[in-house]
Every structure is written in structure tokens, then in C-alpha cells.
């Protein structure tokens, strides 16, 4: 078919035009990636610079030999590892309800998540202090009911940071799962039910397998969000539960040891890339199995 408003176009000219269009459209993304790679390259260079124009692995050796700093990386990894499935358990039902309802319920849930999502992390952190703090709603209620005689330690420790990360990350889990679930035909569930499957069987054998791409996407997002968390551990950990990103910031900005901060950043980046690679492989395997 001829393009409108133009004369006959040779196939090669059309291909060239399409190529030019594609190049123009991908240009912004390429620029963004270039900035990202330039920033990463700067960090790599800083991590290898040992001062006086010399290069070496001193910062990496320090990172690998000091249990304190390796401990921060391990802590971030560990927290992300157990917070992700908890976020999934909380987020999946919400996504399911959103996908299977219409009208006010879906609207209310979406609104609730979107408002939460676009509220500043700092404001959300202070809101959580008002709920979980020594003087917060939970402790005041428990004290008033006589259930406890002193406030529960819900903040300034691992528990407080984990609770905050799970609550804050829920939208990252819900939206990818919802995006997949709303495209899963409800008729499939009805068909499985009519063939004698109970609700549990329908969920495990029909709904869940079909929603796995969304679960995987959500899990990756949440895992990376938790792994690199900065504001929640910084404000709600009370200094007793700093995570890797907090230490990197302190080393770069306060201690002014950019080389070591860069080495720690690279450590965190390697863990991140490894997790993305493994989950992609797992995702590909799941898709293959689904294809079979």
C-alpha cells in the first residue's frame, strides 16, 4: 500500500525511512543509557583509584576483608530476600481483587495505591513513625488497653525497617500482577470450575501459573527496591539498622571516601545484576514450561 500523500516509494526507500524513524525514536533512550553508563563508568574508575594518580584494588580488598562492610551488603540482601515474598503475599490478593472487580472497588484500591505511590518517601516514613513509634497509634492503643506495660519496640530495629519496606513496596508488586491478571480471561476460571475444580485448585492450576510473568516482574522490582533502600532504613532504623545504601552515602558524603563508597556501590550493583539475571533465567524457564 502506498503511503498517503506521497508518490510510489521503492521498498528500499521505505525501509530506509523506517530505519530513520526507528533511530529517531530510540535516540532519547540511547541518551539515557549513555548517561547511565557514563555514571557507572565514573564509579568504576573511582573504585579503582587509590590516590596520587595510582590504581589498584585496595577499596575492593577492604570491602572483602572487613566483616562490618560485607555485613551491610549481606543485610541488604537478606532483608530484600524475605521482604519480597511477604510483599507478594500482601500484594497478590489486592491485584486479584482489582483485576476481578469493577467500578468503585477497583477505583478505590487504585486510588489508594497511587496516592501511596506518589507520596514522598520521607512523608511516608514520618507517617509510619506516628503509627509504629513508641508514642505511635499502635503502642498507645496497646498501653491504653493494658495489653503491654511498656511500648513495643516496633521501630529503630530490623522489624521496623522490614515493616516499612513491605508496606512501601506493595504498589511495586500490585501493578505488574494486576497488569497480567486483568488480561487473564475470567472464563478460564469458570471453565475449570465447571470441570469440577474447587477454588483452591483453580487458583493453583489456572490463575497463578498464568499470572507468573506479573509475579516475576513485581518480585524483581520489589527485590531491587528493598536491596537499595535508603530512606526507610535511614529514618526508621534509628542508626541501628543502616543498610548498604546508607553506608555508601555516608562514606561518599560524610567521610568523603569516594573510592570505598564506589567499591561498595559496585558490590551492590553486582548483586543486583546477578539477581536480575537469575530471575530472567527462571522467568524464561517458566515460560518454556507454560509453552509445553
Amino acid at each position, binding site marked *: 500500500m502506498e503511503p498517503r500523500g506521497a508518490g510510489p516509494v521503492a521498498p528500499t526507500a521505505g525501509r530506509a525511512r523506517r530505519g530513520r524513524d526507528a533511530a529517531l525514536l530510540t535516540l532519547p533512550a540511547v541518551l539515557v543509557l549513555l548517561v547511565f553508563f557514563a555514571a557507572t563508568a565514573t564509579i568504576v574508575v573511582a573504585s579503582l583509584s587509590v590516590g596520587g594518580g595510582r590504581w589498584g584494588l585496595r577499596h575492593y580488598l577492604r570491602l572483602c576483608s572487613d566483616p562490618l562492610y560485607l555485613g551491610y551488603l549481606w543485610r541488604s540482601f537478606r532483608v530484600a530476600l524475605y521482604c519480597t515474598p511477604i510483599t507478594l503475599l500482601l500484594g497478590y490478593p489486592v491485584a486479584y481483587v482489582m483485576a476481578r472487580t469493577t467500578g468503585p472497588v477497583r477505583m478505590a484500591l487504585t486510588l489508594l495505591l497511587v496516592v501511596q505511590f506518589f507520596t514522598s518517601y520521607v512523608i511516608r516514613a514520618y507517617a509510619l513513625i506516628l503509627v509504629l*513509634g513508641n508514642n505511635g497509634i499502635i503502642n498507645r492503643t496497646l498501653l491504653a488497653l493494658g495489653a503491654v506495660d511498656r511500648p513495643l519496640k516496633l521501630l529503630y530495629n530490623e522489624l521496623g525497617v522490614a515493616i516499612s519496606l513491605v508496606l512501601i513496596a506493595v504498589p511495586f508488586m500490585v501493578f505488574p500482577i494486576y497488569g497480567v491478571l486483568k488480561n487473564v480471561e475470567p472464563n478460564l476460571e469458570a471453565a475449570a470450575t465447571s470441570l469440577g475444580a474447587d477454588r483452591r485448585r483453580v487458583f493453583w492450576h489456572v490463575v497463578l501459573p498464568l499470572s507468573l510473568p506479573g509475579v516475576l516482574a513485581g518480585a524483581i522490582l520489589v527485590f531491587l527496591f528493598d536491596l537499595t533502600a535508603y530512606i526507610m532504613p535511614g529514618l526508621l532504623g534509628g542508626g541501628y539498622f543502616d543498610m548498604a545504601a546508607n553506608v555508601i552515602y*555516608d562514606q561518599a558524603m560524610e567521610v568523603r571516601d569516594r573510592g570505598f563508597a564506589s567499591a561498595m556501590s559496585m558490590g551492590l550493583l553486582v548483586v543486583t545484576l546477578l539477581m536480575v539475571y537469575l530471575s530472567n533465567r527462571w522467568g524464561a524457564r517458566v515460560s518454556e514450561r507454560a509453552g509445553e
Partner: protein
Amino acid sequence: MNRPRGLAALLALTVLLVAATLLGPAPVDAQPEIVLMTWGGAFRDAFEAAKPDIEKAARVRLTFVTQAGAAAGLSRLEAQKASPQVDLWTSIVSTAQDGLKSGVVEELPVAQIPNVKQVPDYLVSPAGVAIWTSLRGIFYRSDKVPFEIKTWEDLWDPRLKGLVSTSFLLDKGNFLIMAALINGGSERDIDKGFEKVKALRPNLAFFYKTDAESIKFLQAGEAAVAGWGILPNVYKLLGPGSNYKFVVPARPQFLAPIPISLVKGRPHRAEALRTIDAILSPAVQEKLVENLGSVPANRTASPPEKIRSFVPPLTGVYNVDWDLVNARFSEWESRWNREVQVR
């Protein structure tokens, strides 16, 4: 519409919009612009209040850029080193010295700033001249603390179990130095400081990294005492009938001179120096400290009446050796995380 033509038109429009935004209309005001980087909150408010006087005296248009902290400000200056966007920068002494060493600020030509003559010598350094000194002390809530806090040692009182918060990073380990001093050490013998701070652990609720955090946590009732308080930030919360108290213990006393530094490589150097001179003039000094509860750097200016009620005679001021602190800070920070900030 033909697709390539549409794309080209879209691109042209984008380029036009970007160019229009970047080039913009020429500024109506012919006064040269001087950009001052300082903290937000009370500090920015104080500068905003004094801005008309500074602009009039220095014949400049003063604009502000906010920094989260002095160290963050220095990092920004270092990132902009090739093309600086800031003329003047307020910080703390240790960070200003770092700025001079890293070459982002220039040695201050004090001879070109007439009002520097009115500033005591110990407040003038090549990295900058102090524009005021701010008091450090203990900030607490009298409705949550069962006794009146008077000395640094009071922080160790068992009645304050779980009620104290403090900071290592704020003022570059100054709390640790204070602990060393009251335990017979100093920044040269910091083991005494660590020993003393470790004994404080039963009283410690949490640690804060910025003064803003400390205030928010106190307001939310999460702690009753901020063991390292910065007066200008809490000044507006103090007064008769207020539950917020600020104590400047008699010994050792810590005064933080706030230096203003001249950033290297900016086009309006002479105007920037005139701005420093205007900031150091008695009238502007009094206006600034009135809003911050600080002590003016110019000895002919008077401190605000309100602080006289809770600031004792400043006879026990300790001068920290910031060169030594800068050299050992990394080692202290790591040790603090290992020995103090753990449960």
C-alpha cells in the same frame, strides 16, 4: 500527516521549546546575580529576612541554593568544579577546610573585605570568614525529662534510660569529642570518648544524622533528649511556657563558627566579596542572628536579647583541631559503627 514530516515537526518544536526555555527573556534587573548556597529551614529564612539589606549594600541580586548539609554542599561544588554555579557557600569549619584543599573555594582575600577587621582573628581563616557562631548544646523536652538538664554528664543519668538520641555524623564527630573531653581525653585521645559513649548505650534510643531529624523525632515524642543540639534550628521553639529547652553546659562549650567561602571561578568575584562585606555589616549581622539565636561574628553587633536568658558566660569554649579530625574521621566512623551503633 506524513509520518516523517510529523516526526520532524515534533522534533523542531521540541528544539524550539528547549531553546526558548534555555535562552529565555533577558533579565530585567541589571544587578549582577550572586548565588549563595546555604542550608534550608531556619538558615534560609534568616537570609531571606536580611536579603533586601544585603542586596542594597552590595548592589547585587542575591539568590539562594539549598544544601542538605555542609558535606552535601561540598560534594555539589566538587561536581560543578569545571563550571561552578555558586558564588558563596556557608558551611562548617572542617568542611570549608576540605573545600579549600580540594580547590573549589579560593583563599579569602580578607584585605578586600573591610568588615573583616571587626571579626576576631580566630574566626577568620583562609577557607572563609565566620558570619556568626552558633551554639551547640542539649535540646530536650521538659515534659518528658524528670529533671532539669544542666551538664553534659546529665545525659548519662539512669533516669534518661531509652530517652536520649544523639549523632556522630552531625558536626563531624563533635559529640564523640565532647564525650572524650568530659572523660579526660580529647580528639587526640579519642579512646576516652568511645569509652564514655559506650557507657551511654542504655540511655540511647536512636541516632540521627541531621538536626532536622532530631527535631522531628523529639516532636513526635520518640525521644526526650537530642544530645547534640544546634541552637539556630530549634531557636523558634524556645521561649517562656515552651516545653522545649536548650542547654549550653558550662564546660566544655562548643561554638560552631559558620564560615562563608568564596567559590573559585565565578564571573562576579568583586560583587561576591561585596556581598560578604554586607553580610558582615553590623545591621545585617543583628538581623541574621535575631532569627537564628546565634552570636554575631562582627564584634560591634549585639547578640539577640532572647539568648542571654539561657546562654551562660562563654568561658569554657573548646576549640577543636579540625585538621586532626579530618585526618582521623574515617577511622572514627568505622569504629563508631562497630562499637557504638550496635545492639
